[in-house]
C-alpha cells in the first residue's frame, strides 16, 4: 500500500497508515470555491472490455493480418465495400472511424499502436485496475493515477487558492478507480441530476446542514463536496447549453456524456480532469468486420469524439483527449468469429496540441515469432509512457515519480505526441 502525506496551507499534515481515514484526506481539500481560469484539460475515455486494437487501427500492410483473421479482418482500403480508411499506406482506420480521418489529416489526432500494460494478465478486472492505478501487477495501490496527479499538482504545497469542486469529474455512476483517492472528484451521469428535487421549504438548506455538522467521515465529506459543486453548477447554468459549430452528438449515453464534458469545459468551472467510459468491447462472439457488433461500437465512439472536437472548436487547443482500453485481443480470431483476450492494444490522442497525423509506437509485427506468447500483439510502448507524457507535458505535472510509483521510465521514453 502506498500512502502519502498531504499538506494544506502548511497547517494540516496528515500521515495515514494502517486504517485509512480517507475522509480526513478528503476534507483537507474540501474548502472554498473558485472558478479556475481557462486552463488545460485532460479527458480520459476508457473503452471497458478490451477493444480489438487490430480491427480499430488496421495493419492492412501486414499480410499476416488477413491470414490470422479470415472472417473478421477489415478489407484493405482498396476494397470496393467496407474498406478500411487508409492513414499512411500501412495502417488504416476501421471504416466506422471515418470521422477521425479529418482530424488525423489536420494533425490533431494520433493513433498509438502496440501500447498497453506490461502485465501479462488477461483478466479484464485486473487489467483495468492496473491501467487505472497506473501500477501494473500491483493490486494493492489505493488510488488512481489521475487522482494522484490531482493530489500532487497545484493543490497542496502550492495551494494559494483551493481547487474547484469540478476540477475532476467522472461522467459515471460510481467514482472510477482511476479517480479514487484523496483529491475530491465528482461522479455523475448527468448534469441535470446534480440537484435536489422536491426540496420544498428549507429542506435543501437543512439537508446541507446535516452534511456540514463537522463530522469527518466518508459520507459527510462526500456530502460537503456535493453541496459545493451544486452551488457552482447552479451559477454556471448548464441547462441553457447548446453545442457550437453544429456539433452533432450521438444520442447514446457515451455521446451525451461527452456533450456534458464539453459543457463543463466551456462553462469555465475549473474542470481539469474529465473521465467517461463506454462498454461493449468484449467481442468474444460474432464481432463482425466492417459492419456488425464492433463497427457499431466504433461508430458511436468516433461520432461522439468528433462532435466533441467540433463543439469545442478553438478550445481544443487546451484539451487533450486520451482513449484507452485494458488490453487488446488475440491476433487470431477465435472459433466463434470473435476474439479472446489478448495483450497490447491501441490508444488515440486527440487535441489541438497533439503532434498528430502519424501513427505512433513501434510496430512489432504479426508473424508467429513476433507475437506475444504465440497469440497476441506484442507490446512496444508501456502505457505509463503515454500517461506520463500527458500529465507531464500537457498538464505540466512536476512529480512523475509520485504519480507512477515504481515506473522506471523517463521523458526519454515519451512518444512526443503532445506539445508542452
Amino acid at each position, binding site marked *: 500500500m502506498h500512502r502519502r502525506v498531504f499538506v494544506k496551507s502548511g497547517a494540516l499534515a496528515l500521515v495515514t497508515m494502517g486504517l485509512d481515514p480517507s475522509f480526513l484526506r478528503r476534507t483537507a481539500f474540501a474548502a472554498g470555491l473558485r472558478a479556475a481560469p481557462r486552463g488545460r484539460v485532460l479527458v480520459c475515455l476508457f473503452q471497458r472490455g478490451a477493444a480489438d486494437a487490430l480491427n480499430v487501427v488496421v495493419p492492412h500492410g501486414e499480410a499476416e493480418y488477413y491470414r490470422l483473421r479470415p472472417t473478421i479482418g477489415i478489407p484493405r482500403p482498396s476494397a470496393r465495400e467496407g474498406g478500411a480508411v487508409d492513414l499512411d499506406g500501412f495502417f488504416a482506420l476501421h471504416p466506422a472511424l471515418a470521422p477521425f480521418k479529418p482530424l488525423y489529416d489536420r494533425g490533431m489526432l494520433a493513433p498509438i499502436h502496440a501500447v498497453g500494460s506490461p502485465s501479462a494478465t488477461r483478466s479484464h478486472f485486473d487489467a483495468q485496475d492496473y491501467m487505472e492505478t497506473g501500477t501494473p501487477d500491483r493490486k494493492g495501490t489505493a488510488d488512481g493515477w489521475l487522482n494522484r496527479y490531482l493530489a500532487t499538482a497545484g493543490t497542496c504545497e502550492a495551494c494559494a487558492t483551493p481547487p474547484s469542486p469540478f476540477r475532476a469529474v467522472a461522467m459515471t*455512476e460510481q467514482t472510477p478507480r482511476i479517480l479514487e483517492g484523496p483529491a475530491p*472528484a465528482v*461522479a455523475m451521469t448527468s448534469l441535470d441530476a446534480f440537484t435536489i428535487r422536491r426540496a420544498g421549504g428549507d429542506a435543501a438548506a437543512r439537508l446541507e*446542514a446535516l*452534511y456540514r455538522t463537522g463530522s469527518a467521515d466518508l459520507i459527510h465529506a462526500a456530502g460537503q463536496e*456535493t453541496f459545493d459543486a451544486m452551488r457552482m453548477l447552479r451559477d454556471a447554468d448548464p441547462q441553457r447549453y447548446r453545442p457550437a459549430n453544429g456539433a452533432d452528438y450521438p444520442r447514446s449515453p457515451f455521446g451525451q456524456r461527452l456533450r456534458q464534458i464539453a459543457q463543463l469545459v466551456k462553462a469555465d468551472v475549473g474542470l481539469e480532469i474529465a473521465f467517461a467510459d463506454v462498454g461493449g468491447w468484449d467481442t468474444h462472439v460474432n464481432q463482425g468486420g466492417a459492419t456488425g457488433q464492433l463497427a457499431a461500437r466504433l461508430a458511436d465512439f468516433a461520432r461522439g469524439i468528433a462532435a466533441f472536437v467540433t463543439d469545442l472548436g478553438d478550445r481544443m487547443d487546451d484539451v487533450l483527449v486520451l482513449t484507452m482500453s485494458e488490453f487488446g485481443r488475440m491476433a487470431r480470431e477465435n472459433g466463434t468469429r470473435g476474439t479472446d483476450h489478448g495483450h497490447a492494444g491501441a490508444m488515440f490522442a486527440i487535441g489541438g496540441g497533439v503532434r498528430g497525423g502519424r501513427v505512433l509506437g513501434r510496430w512489432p509485427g504479426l508473424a508467429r515469432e513476433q507475437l506475444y506468447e504465440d497469440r497476441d500483439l506484442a507490446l512496444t510502448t508501456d502505457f505509463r509512457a503515454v500517461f506520463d507524457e500527458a500529465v507531464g507535458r500537457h498538464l505540466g505535472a512536476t512529480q512523475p515519480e509520485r504519480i507512477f510509483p515504481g515506473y522506471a521510465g523517463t521523458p526519454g521514453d515519451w512518444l512526443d505526441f503532445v506539445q508542452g
Partner: protein
Amino acid sequence: MARPLPIAALLATLAAAALPAQPRLATPAPPTVAAAGREQTRDQQVRHVLDRLAFGPRPGDIERVRAMGVDAWIARQLTPERIPDPTGDALMAGFPSLALSLDDRFRHTPPPPRLRETRRRGGAALTAADSAERRRDRQQARRAGRQLLGELASMRVARAVATERQLEEVMVDVWENHFNVFAGKGPYAGQYLVGFDRDVIRPHALGRFRDLLGAVARSPAMLVYLDNAQSQATPDAPTLAPRPRRAARQRRGLNENYARELLELHTLGVDGGYTQHDVIEVARALTGWTIAPPAQGGGFVFRPALHDAGAKTVLGASLPAGRGIEDGEQVLDLLARHPATARFIATKLARRFVSDTPPPALVARAAETFRRTDGDIREVVRTIVTSPEFFSAATYRSKVKSPLELVVSALRALCAEPDTTPRTAQVVARLGQPLFGHQAPDGYPETGEAWINGGAILKRIDFGLAVAAGALPGVSVRRWAPARELAGAPREQQVDGILHALLGGAASPDTRQVLLRGENPLLARADGPTRRAPATDPLAALVGLALGSPEFQRR
C-alpha cells in the same frame, strides 16, 4: 403493468408478522458463542443483526428480536426453511409469470423459432420473409425478456421488503452479485434469469457451495452470459461423437471467457494460484456444456460431439482422455474444495457481513469452517455472524448501504407494502444498482467508497425526499404508525420519535439539532434566501430529512 395486489392478505400477514414471536418459532438452537465477550451493548446487537442479517428493522422487529434473544434469532434465520413466510408467499402470487418453467415460456412466447425449426426440418430453405420474421421474433423475445426482467427485479426488491426469511434474501443478493449475470446479453437473458434466481440461486443460497457452483455452471443464464454455450472443442481435438456437419464447417472452437471468470471471480480468486494454461484446460473440460435451442426448451444440455475428449491437466490434477461431462464435474469438484476458494468465499462473506476490511483472523476461521464442512455455506455464515469480530464496537454501523439496502431498509422502516409495480426497482436502478444490470462479471462493489460520491449522495437525498412525499407506491408517512402517534406532539417529541423509529439510537446530536431547529449554527455559509415552498406536512419533512441524513446511509 401493475397487477392487482392481494393487499388484504398482505396486510393480514404483515400484522401477524409484527406480533411478538410465537414460542414455537423460538426454537432453541444453542448459541455457538457465549454472548459475553461481545463489545456491542445488547441493544446494539439487536439493531446490528437486523441491519446485517436482514434489510433493516420494521416497526416491532427490534422488540421481537430482543424478546427472542439475538442468538436464537440468528439461529432461526439460518434455517429459513423452518420459518413460515405467508407474506413472502402471498407476494409471489402477484408474479405468476415468474413461476413458469423455461420450457413453458418458450412454448408460449415466442412461437416463431419453433416455426422456423419446423420449416427447416421440412427441408425448406430459409426465405427472405423467414429472416424478416426471425428479426421480428428476436425483437419480440427481447421485449418479452425485458418485461420479465422488470418483474424479476420488482420481485427481488419487494421480497426483500416483505419476507420473513431475511437472511436467505440477503444471501440471494450476495450470490446473485457473486455470480453476476448481465441482463443485456443476448435476446433471452430475461427468460434465463427467472430460472437463475428461482432454481439456481435460491435453493442453494445457504446450501453447499459445490451444489450452488454446479447449478450455476449448468444455468443457461451463465452459459450464455459468459459464452460457454458457444465454446466447443477446437477442430483438431478428439470429440466423443462425430461433430455435426454445421459445426465442422464453421470451424468454431474454444472460448475461454467462462473458464477464466469461474477461476477468477467464482472460486479461487485472482490470486488463487492458477495460470493461463489452467484457464485453457478448464475451458476444454467445459466444452459441450451448452444449451438447447429455444424451440427445444432452451435448457442445459451436454453435447458429446462438441466436447474435447483429450487428456487435460487442471491445477495439477490429471483428467484422463475419453471422458465426457465428468471432466467438467471434476473441475467443479476441484475448485469447490480448493483452499483458495475457501479463503476467497470466506473473505467475500466477511466483507458483506462484517467490514469492508474484514479481520484476517475471522476470515481464517470462516475459511476453516468452509473446509471442515465441505463448503456448507450456512455454517460459514454462522461462524461469521456469531463471531466476536461481528459484534465488535468498530463493526457497528460501519458499512455503507448499497442502493438496494438503502431503499429496502427505508421501506421496511416505514412499514411499506411491497410494491409489485416496476417503480421501486427503477428507483434502485436510478440510485446506481439496476438489478441484473451490471455488465461486467465482477458484480457490484462491496465496499463503501465505491458507492459514496457527490452524485450518489444527491440521489440518496432525493430518494429520501421522494419517499417522504409519498412518491413511491405502498408508502405513506400519514398511515405510518409512529407518525400517527406523533401527530399532535410537541416538536421535540416528534423529532425524537422519528429519529428513534428510523435511526434507532444512531443519530448524532448535530443531526438532532438540525432537525429540531431547522437550522445549523455550524453552517455559517448557508447563503442565498431559501424559497418558502407551500408548507409540507412537518412529520413528512422530518422523515425526508432523516432518510436523507448521513446516518441513514449506514448499516
